[in-house]
C-alpha cells in the first residue's frame, strides 16, 4: 500500500511542477495584482510580474524535487532573498508576520482556480491529488515567507536597538575644547560601551580637553554603573582629556555613599552648569554679567 501511495504522490508532484511551468505566465500575471507583490514592487507592473515568475519557478523547482513539505527545500533558495525583501517591506508597513503569511495564503486561490480550469479537460481522477499537492506546496511557501518575515523582524529589532543606543548617546560640543554627553536612561554594559567609544572618538575629532558626562537622566547608580563611569573617565584621561561627571542628584549621592562606592578618582559637580563653569575656568575663561546689566546691543 505504501509504495503505490508514494508513487501517486510523486506523480502528483511532477504533474504540479508541469502545471506550474506551463501556466507560469498566467499565474504571474494574476499574482502581480495581489497586494503582497503590488505594494512591494512599485516601480512597474513588469517588475512585479518578474518577481512573481521567480516565485513560480521556485515552486515548480520544489515540486519537481518532490519535497513539497520541506521549508528547507533547495528550490526556495533563489527566491529567499526576494521573499525576505517582500516580508521586510510589508512589516515596515506595519504588518505582522502572521498577516504577511495570510497574504501569501491568498495566492493559493489564484493557482487553484487555474488548476480547476485545466481539470475540465483531461483525466479528472488525478486532479484531487494535484490539488492536494498544490495546497501543501502553497502552505510551505507561506511558512517560508513567515520564516523570513520573522528573521527580518529580528534583524530589524537588533538594528534598531543599536541605533537606539547611538541615538540615546549624543556627544555635543559645549565650547571650544569642551564636549558633553547627556546620559538618559539605564546605563548597562552595552550602552556604556557605546558611550565610551563615542566619547573617545569625539575627544579625538573635536580635540577636546574636557568631557562632561551628565547623569541627570540616569535613574539609578549602582556599583556597576559607577564602575562604567570610572572606566570611561580613566580611558578619557589616557587620551589626555579630563572627565567631569555632573548631575548627581541628592538621592543618587546618598545611594553612592550607602553602597560604599568610591568615586574619589572621579571629578564630580552637581550640575552640568557647574561642570561647564569648572572646565571654562580651567581654560582661563571667565563668564560674568555685564556691569550695566543691559543685554548687548
Amino acid at each position, binding site marked *: 500500500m505504501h509504495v503505490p501511495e508514494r508513487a501517486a504522490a510523486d506523480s502528483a508532484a511532477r504533474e504540479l511542477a508541469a502545471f506550474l511551468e506551463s501556466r507560469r505566465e498566467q499565474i504571474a500575471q494574476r499574482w502581480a495584482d495581489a497586494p503582497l507583490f503590488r505594494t512591494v514592487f512599485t516601480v512597474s507592473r513588469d517588475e512585479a510580474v518578474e518577481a512573481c515568475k521567480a516565485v513560480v519557478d521556485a515552486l515548480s523547482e520544489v515540486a519537481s524535487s518532490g519535497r513539497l513539505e520541506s521549508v528547507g527545500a533547495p528550490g526556495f533558495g533563489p527566491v529567499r532573498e526576494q521573499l525576505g*525583501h517582500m516580508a521586510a517591506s510589508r512589516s515596515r508597513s506595519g504588518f505582522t508576520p502572521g498577516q504577511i503569511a495570510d497574504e501569501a495564503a491568498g495566492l493559493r486561490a489564484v493557482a487553484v482556480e487555474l488548476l480547476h480550469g485545466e481539470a475540465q479537460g483531461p483525466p479528472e481522477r488525478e486532479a484531487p491529488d494535484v490539488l492536494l499537492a498544490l495546497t501543501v506546496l502553497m502552505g510551505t511557501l507561506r511558512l517560508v515567507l513567515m520564516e523570513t518575515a520573522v528573521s527580518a523582524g529580528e534583524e530589524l529589532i537588533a*538594528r534598531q536597538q543599536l*541605533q537606539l543606543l547611538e541615538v540615546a548617546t549624543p556627544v555635543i560640543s559645549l565650547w571650544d575644547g569642551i564636549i558633553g554627553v547627556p546620559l538618559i536612561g539605564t546605563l548597562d554594559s552595552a550602552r556604556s560601551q557605546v558611550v565610551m567609544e563615542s566619547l573617545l572618538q569625539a575627544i579625538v575629532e573635536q580635540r577636546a580637553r574636557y568631557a562632561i558626562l551628565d547623569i541627570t537622566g540616569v535613574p539609578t547608580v549602582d556599583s556597576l554603573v559607577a564602575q562604567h563611569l570610572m572606566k570611561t573617565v580613566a580611558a578619557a584621561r589616557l587620551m589626555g582629556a579630563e572627565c567631569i561627571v555632573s548631575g548627581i542628584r541628592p538621592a543618587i549621592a546618598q545611594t553612592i555613599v550607602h553602597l560604599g562606592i568610591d568615586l574619589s578618582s572621579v571629578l564630580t559637580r552637581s550640575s552640568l552648569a557647574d561642570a561647564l563653569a569648572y572646565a571654562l575656568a580651567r581654560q582661563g575663561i571667565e563668564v560674568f554679567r555685564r556691569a550695566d546689566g543691559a543685554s548687548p546691543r
Partner: protein
Amino acid sequence: MTPASEPATVTSLPIGSDADLAWVRHQVRQFAAELGFGLVQQTKIVTAASELARNTLVHGGGGQAQIHPLHHGPARGLRLLFTDTGPGIRDVELAMTDGYTTGGGLGLGLSGAKRLVDELSVETEPGQGTVVTVVAWVTRAPAVRPGLG
C-alpha cells in the same frame, strides 16, 4: 549545543622568542579583521593574545599558539589556544587574581586577558604544562550589514 563548524584553516604558530610574540599579534589581528571584528574588539583580542602568548613564553618556557576561526550560523568568532609544556600553574584561582605575579610583571596577564574576551579557560597540571583557551565573538554592528531596503 551543536559544535561550531570549523573549516580546516587552523593556524599554529610557535612561541619561542620576542619576535614570535609580535608574529602572533600580527596573525591574530589579521584573522580578527577578516572575521569582521570591529577595531575596538580587534584591539582587545590582540592584546589578550599578547598577554597569553607572553605567559606561554615567560612562564611556560615557550610553546605554541593556535588560531581557530569560528563560524556558528551567522555568528563569527575566534578561538585561540596557548599551549606550553612548562611547570604548569599550581593554583589557577590565585593566578587569576589581579596583581598576582611570579614573572615580575604587573600580574594582569590572565585576569586582564579574561576581561578582554568572552570566555577564558585554563587547563593545567603541575609539571604537565598549561593550555589556555580564549573565545571571542563578533558583536553585531549596525554598519556591517547592508540594509534590506
